[in-house]
């Protein structure tokens, strides 16, 4: 028994995402046992829908973290672009198709991210500090110059994008559950991120620099290029995530998304990425996002008061941290 336990924990230590998967299964079993409604297609749809924004943020954060940085500004980037682009589109070009708006958000996010990357590179300052700074700057710019009011009259193209359906099922109480098409954006982003990280020189350069930037530089990897790319990629995904948030929420609230950074970071770390950089996988990150979404959204089904959700997430993080710390010490 003892050896099998030791074998299990050793296995989990070597494959951190499996630990996350195990937690997901455990949480699902527990909630499912308490509340049979958990095992509905509708619930799966809701989980997928609620994972999209966190998932996009998480993928961006993963890339920055793998390169040895930390990005705290992605929610501010997302909030600025979603609010700015939504109000501007509504005011000047309500006919603009969603594809163009999404592209603009991606480009805008990329540019802001590049600023982050260049600042981190040239100031030689810790990315944590720099991006906390840019987060404040961007958010304050949004609230001072762009606007502070809840904006509900969003352009039809943006609203309709959030309404495209892939699949629709009826549920027991006569209501319907919808799997929205924008879930596919996360799927595409995950595949692209995986491809970049594992199949391109840039991907390996990201891990090389996250592992040890001095050595990577000596071996001929261009640190500036990698840092700028990582932050730009994170910004790009943040821009897209912001627009999806508006599109699904059908309103643009400049105060939204603020404060969700910690949940994203928790998801990526629960997905097995080391906070010190140089590691992490797309699959692990997605599992971490699912776990966080699960805990944040379905504890109602188990009749757990919302104040306890943070407690559960906290316990998972401590548990995962302890497990992964064991891996470091070996």
């Amino acid at each position, binding site marked *: 028994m003892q050896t099998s336990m030791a074998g299990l924990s050793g296995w989990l230590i070597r494959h951190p995402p499996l630990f996350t998967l195990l937690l997901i299964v455990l949480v699902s079993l527990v909630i499912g046992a308490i*509340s049979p*409604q958990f095992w*509905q297609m*509708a*619930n799966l749809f*809701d989980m997928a829908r*609620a994972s999209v924004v966190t998932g996009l943020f998480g993928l961006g954060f993963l890339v920055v973290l793998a390169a040895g940085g930390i990005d705290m500004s992605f929610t501010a980037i997302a909030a600025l672009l979603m609010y700015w682009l939504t109000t501007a589109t509504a005011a000047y070009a309500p006919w603009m198709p969603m594809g163009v708006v999404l592209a603009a958000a991606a480009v805008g996010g990329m540019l802001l991210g590049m600023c982050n990357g260049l600042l981190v590179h040239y100031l030689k300052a810790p990315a944590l500090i720099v991006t906390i700074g840019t987060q404040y700057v961007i*958010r*304050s710019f949004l*609230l001072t110059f762009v*606007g*502070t*009011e*809840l904006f*509900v009259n969003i352009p039809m193209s943006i609203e309709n994008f959030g309404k495209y359906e892939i699949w629709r099922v009826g*549920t*027991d*109480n*006569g*209501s*319907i*559950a*919808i799997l929205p098409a924008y879930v596919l954006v996360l799927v595409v982003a995950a595949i692209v991120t995986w491809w970049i990280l594992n199949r391109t020189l840039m991907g390996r350069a990201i891990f090389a620099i996250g592992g040890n930037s001095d050595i990577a530089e000596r071996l001929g990897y261009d640190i500036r290029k990698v840092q700028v790319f990582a932050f730009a990629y994170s910004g790009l995904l943040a821009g897209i995530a912001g627009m999806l*948030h508006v599109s*699904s*929420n*059908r*309103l643009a*609230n*400049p*105060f*939204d998304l*603020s404060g969700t950074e910690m949940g994203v970071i928790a998801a990526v770390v629960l997905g097995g990425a080391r906070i010190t950089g140089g590691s992490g996988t797309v699959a692990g990150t997605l599992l971490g996002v699912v776990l966080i979404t699960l805990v*944040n*959204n*379905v504890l*109602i*089904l188990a*009749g757990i008061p*919302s*104040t306890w959700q943070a407690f559960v997430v906290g316990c998972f993080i401590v548990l995962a941290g302890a497990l992964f710390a064991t891996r470091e010490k070996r």
Partner: protein
Amino acid sequence: MATMKKLAVCALLLGSVFTIGTALAAGNKTIVTVVKLAGETWFTRMDQGVKDYGVKTAGVTTSEIGPGKADAAQQERLIEDLIARGVDAIAVVPFDPPMLEGVLKRAMDRGIKVMTHEANNLKNTQVDMEAFDNAAFGAHFNDQLADCMGKSGTWTSFVGSLGSLTHVQWADASAANAAKKYPDMKLVSAKNESFNDANTAYNKAKELLKKFPDLKGIEGGSAVDVIGIGRAVEEAGLVGKICVYGIGMPNDTSRYLKSGAVNGISLWDPKDAGFVMNKIAHMLVDGTEFKEGMDLGVPGYNNMHVKQGPGKGIIVTGQAWIDVNKDNLDKYNF
């Protein structure tokens, strides 16, 4: 000798600065309204009333400020700044009333007049103004909901957060009202927190619909709750099958009111509240007495009820709620 001269000049200068300062203060009373969150639609509307009072009343400068983030600590810091600036009166809509006890006491110790809104559990205030009795307002929601539900079935309620006293009071009064008058209505999983975020309200509403397939009524707590709840109901194809009532802003909620996903919203006009808050603060500065049944000059605030608060201060209450639905929506353009 030269030193003496310099000192004399300094003393003179200092003296004149004081004189000018006092003169300014005497000429223009400053009242600052501190709200929960700058820029939120609700408080933007309130700002109109605040400004309005300043414009219509001679000898008073009024303004509204608020933190960029719904955060009690930031609100406290704003008030600290006002104490340092030495304003004449502060009107506060506290985010989390107990958190402000200390700073408001300091303000009063410095001779600054303090009035509050939506904080009838706060000790350190001279006057707390409630647009209406919260228990009556909560019961009013519940009566509307009961009519819509046919006085029977499962229902639930939302609050912005468990720390938002008024939200909790409404939810509790609703629950008490239902328990007393409608024995066939069953309350489940009460007081879900939305954290003033429509998307959170949406996600929670979806979960509630799953957990309780027979759910027939939902009451919103914060002003954006009904937006999220309405969307969840709409997407689940349950419009007309589930009754949704709550506080809300007419413009923000209009689409859901029109579609029927939200049956009705009740509110008090923040513009009027802002106006009345500043009127009360001004009365404090002038030392005017607060009498039972007094008229503050705004509809709904014509017959104020005065009672002792939890501290030394008093609570004044009006009857200023309005009900908005699909039919009368056009009348309220804010």
